[in-house]
């Protein structure tokens, strides 16, 4: 039991640290990440992690990059979770044709390919991180919906729900005050996982060149490091830190999600 709590605390600590960094980015970063100095500098006193190909301070870029990851990650997860919750709750509670229809819709959304959607959206709107966040959120609500639905199916068979029905409570009331709290332990880890996947997706899209250059992000940092000779010239201080940051941030969120799941599931036995 003790170990689990430790994992939890460490996860919370990491997440909190990253969120703090993202919020205080302007204050804590030593330079403006858009300022240009001498390019391709090795780590030195002025630039802890050296400079990139156009002379931006890598360490400042790293700090500001947390924002993009957070925005895309959490934004996409919020959209996906809200949508998924709504659909899953109503689908699982009312069952019948409504259920089949919603599940059919999830099947369809499951099949929409990610990259073409982003290319389409990027052409008509401006390829920005908000757009990516929207696109990812719109594509991923399906897995949350399924999980919520199956849990709702289980919970609605429980005694207290039946008794609430007998007592004549309105459906919406039952859904929100009886079922929803029981869904939480399933939704929270799903939320975390979606944040994680969204962040990795942002990095992958940047790798393909579909990222948003108006905002500093870890994915874009890695992309430029690769294109502009960072890897070939073994400038590990350029491509490793953003990669490690992605890994660390995602790790903290995912481990938080998993330990939450483990704890609550055990309690619910």
């Amino acid at each position: 039991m003790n170990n689990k709590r430790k994992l939890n605390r460490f996860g919370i600590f990491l997440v909190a640290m990253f969120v703090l960094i993202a919020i205080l980015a302007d204050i804590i970063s030593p330079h403006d990440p858009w300022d240009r100095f001498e390019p391709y500098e090795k780590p030195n006193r002025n630039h802890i992690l050296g400079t990139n190909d156009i002379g931006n301070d890598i360490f400042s870029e790293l700090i500001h990059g947390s924002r993009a990851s957070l925005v895309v990650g959490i934004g996409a997860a919020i959209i996906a979770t809200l949508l998924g919750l709504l659909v899953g709750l109503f689908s699982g509670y009312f069952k019948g044709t409504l259920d089949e229809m919603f599940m059919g819709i999830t099947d369809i959304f499951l099949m929409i390919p990610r990259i073409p959607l982003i290319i389409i959206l990027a052409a008509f709107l401006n390829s920005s991180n908000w757009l990516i966040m929207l696109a990812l959120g719109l594509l991923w609500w399906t897995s949350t919906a399924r999980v919520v639905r199956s849990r709702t199916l289980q919970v609605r068979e429980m005694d207290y729900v039946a008794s609430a029905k007998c007592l004549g409570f309105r459906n919406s009331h039952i859904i929100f005050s009886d079922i929803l709290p029981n869904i939480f332990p399933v939704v929270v880890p799903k939320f975390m996982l979606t944040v994680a996947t969204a962040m990795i997706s942002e990095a992958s899209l940047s790798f393909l060149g579909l990222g948003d250059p108006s905002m500093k992000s870890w994915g874009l940092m890695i992309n430029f490091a690769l294109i502009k000779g960072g890897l070939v010239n073994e400038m590990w201080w350029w491509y490793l830190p953003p990669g490690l940051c992605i890994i660390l941030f995602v790790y903290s969120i995912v481990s938080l999600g998993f330990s939450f799941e483990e704890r609550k599931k055990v309690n619910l036995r």
Partner: protein
Amino acid sequence: MANKNRLSIAILILFVSFFYFCAEKQHGNIKKNILKIGTTRGGFKSASLLGDTFLALFARISNPPLMTMAKDGKLEGLVTARHEVSEDCTKWKFYFDPDLFWSDGTKVTAEDAKFSIKLLAEVVPHARWLHEIINEVYIDEDNALVFELERPYSRLDFDLTTYNILPKHIWKTIEDPLRHTSNDEMVGCGPFVIEKIDLNAGLIRFRKNPYWKGFQPELDGIELHLYNNNDVLAFALERGKVDTYYRYASSYPYPNIERLKATDEFDFLEEPHYGLRFLGFNLNKKPMSDNHFRKAISYAIDYEEIIKLDILGYGEIPSRGFIPPIMPAYKETEELEYDLEKAKCLLAEAGYIDRNGDGFRETPDARKMKLLILISMDYVRLAELVQDYLEAAGIDAQLKTVDYNTWISMKDRNNYDLVVSRTSPWGMFMHASWATGYFDARRTGEGVLHNVDDPNFLKLCDDILSTKDEEKLIEYASHVQDYYARFLPAVALYWSRTVIPYQKRFSGWSPNPLFGLYNIQNFLNLQIRGQDTLSFN
């Protein structure tokens, strides 16, 4: 516990033994002199000689076109021995080299050339314009191939540097030539012929044409190694898996050059590049249509910094005349200059003032001005710099990065204010040469701006297209460059040099302006020194 331990130890032993067993075998080509060229797969998609433009490019040494471009920019015959053109440029005559043989022993004749051009014009989408310009094609009593054209067109010899000549006796029986793919031997008449195309291994192999009667090359064969990823290609080059680097219209990535120099295993070909990067204007929209605006912008760009950051110093500041000094008939025009104060002054004089104090200038009629810089993914860094310079001059600019196909479609619909893009060496020569192909509004094509519809400019193009007179052409070229300098339909961002690394044991390289080291002369003249043991790792 024991189970898990045993399992992990077993896996570990499996891995280690696998590594040991499979460690890369070094197979140096001690018996044969083979040049291994590393290239990126780019648009290469299928082993269809007619259907795939990239294979057509690679096959230029096995199925050479009628003409080629020599180092000095002059066009000379490849499959043809010589050619003539009538004074009004409507009748072309090509004579054939009697000593040219296909790799199956048959002689190359004018029939093959006639067949090939007709086939290409009929079947290949980007060659169909030939239909419209060629009235008649026939073989006359001198056994020469004659083209009679619809209208005067002085550039036919240039266009013929891209159409591969095919053996008629083989291709006339092929049912669907556009889709005909072949992974094995392709009959060709060049010094090297395609022996094998293997897309799964990323390899195209050439062997010597036994019936080549020309100058005998030292090389025994050529291998093209195709990589999906430029970084991995750089690794492979450094590790000796390939001997040199080729990428159409590109230099070896500048950041990686120093590193190769340090290994002391490479020498470098450094040539001025015929193509360049530019900032293009949508002349159909305000404020880009305003001459004063464009002139002011040309002062706002820090050319030195761009050269330092984008090409690591391998270039020079361009002039207003757009055309680099390496091109024939180059004319010196005023050099572009970075003068931020002057830029701001000119903008203010032209009426672009920040009236509402938000830091950005409005149009002369006091409307908000936010410019869209449309780019495809390769130019992000360069465009970031340009955007920065514009903002420093008080112009609100926004980057829009899209994929290449979207970029073309938006550009062709005038859905942009500015673009940052490039010209290729081929592009500089196409149409009426001197980059007119990029500006002539009557044209279209992938990367062209087609933003100039000034009848003076168009007449200039037409004049160039109807004469081969050297003196007249030089005069026209001078007018074209003056036009660019005066009206700035686009601002050149830099004139660069391409750097190509190669293993030291090769020498005698002769790159040509259009295709760099990928040309027949180059492979014929290449010399190889002994067998160095250190280059086989």
